[in-house]
């Protein structure tokens, strides 16, 4: 199982970014206050449901994090689904893209906690409620803080990489069942399952990022 070059995956992710950017630019021309075209209605539906999703988790402070969470969801979904197009490979099937996304989420939720509640209260929140338990709680919180981006990245990478590997192995069996005469696409049920996995993994990644942001932003009163 040879590893894909990170530059190839980066090229595919740039392709996804260009495609999503073109879609966004083309669908936000000539906006009207009450949507009359189908295109604007669809885009407003997507934005509205993403906003409800983010605000439902983070609370009323979630308004300014909606673009981040929504972009994460759409971007990861598009990258996962690119792996199903013949000739392309999913950019998230390499550790480089997923780890960089997890690092970005780590920076964002720490920065959100520091900006919302101040630097010293955030450190105190890491130290835990009874202050004399700090030498115990601080290493636990630090290790937990490192485990979060690690688990985010490896979860996304493992799911998508495993799906692609299963696809490759099953597609290699196409000519084996009835030897070399009839081509049976044995990977078709796995393709359908892979669409479902793409949705679920994008949802889980963005929901976990929203939960981490909400925990960091809420500070003391939510524990």
């Amino acid at each position, binding site marked *: *199982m040879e590893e894909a070059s990170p530059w190839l995956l980066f090229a595919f992710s740039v392709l996804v970014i260009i495609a999503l950017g073109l879609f966004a630019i083309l669908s936000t021309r000539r906006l009207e206050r009450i949507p009359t075209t189908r295109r604007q209605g669809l885009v407003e539906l997507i934005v509205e449901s993403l906003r409800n999703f983010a605000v439902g988790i983070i609370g009323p402070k979630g308004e300014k994090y909606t673009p981040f969470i929504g972009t994460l969801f759409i971007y990861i979904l598009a990258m996962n689904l690119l792996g199903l197009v013949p000739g392309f490979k999913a950019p998230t099937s390499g550790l480089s893209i997923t780890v960089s996304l997890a690092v970005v989420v780590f920076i964002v939720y720490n920065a959100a906690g520091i900006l919302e509640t101040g630097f010293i209260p955030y450190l105190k929140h890491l130290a835990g409620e009874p202050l004399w338990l700090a030498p115990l709680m601080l290493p636990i919180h630090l290790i937990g803080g490192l485990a979060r981006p690690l*688990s985010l990245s*490896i*979860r996304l*990478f*493992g*799911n998508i990489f*495993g799906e692609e590997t299963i696809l490759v192995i099953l597609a290699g069996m196409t000519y084996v069942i009835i030897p070399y005469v009839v081509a049976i696409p044995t990977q078709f049920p796995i393709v359908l399952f892979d669409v479902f996995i793409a949705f*679920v*993994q994008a*949802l*889980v990644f963005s*929901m976990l990022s929203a939960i981490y942001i909400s925990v960091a932003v809420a500070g003391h009163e939510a524990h």
Partner: protein
Amino acid sequence: MNYFVALALAVGFGLPLAVLSAAMAQGRTASTALEGIARQPEAAGRIQTAMIIGLALIESLVIYALLMFFLLQVKLPETEAVLKIIRGG
């Protein structure tokens, strides 16, 4: 030789053990979610969303074991080399 025996056993048994515990946990998750939906059908949407998230998180632990399998599997020796060692070649 004992090292390779242990390695082969770990490669063979590691992932099925993870799958076993994950299957039991996911079954319990799905059954309590279904009971909740049966008790209160108007909360079905929220319960279903929470169930899918829970299932994905449990499944990610199995994915970690699968990654470990891929990492260990390349360290297994080739069959011809092992047969040559056994025959004392």
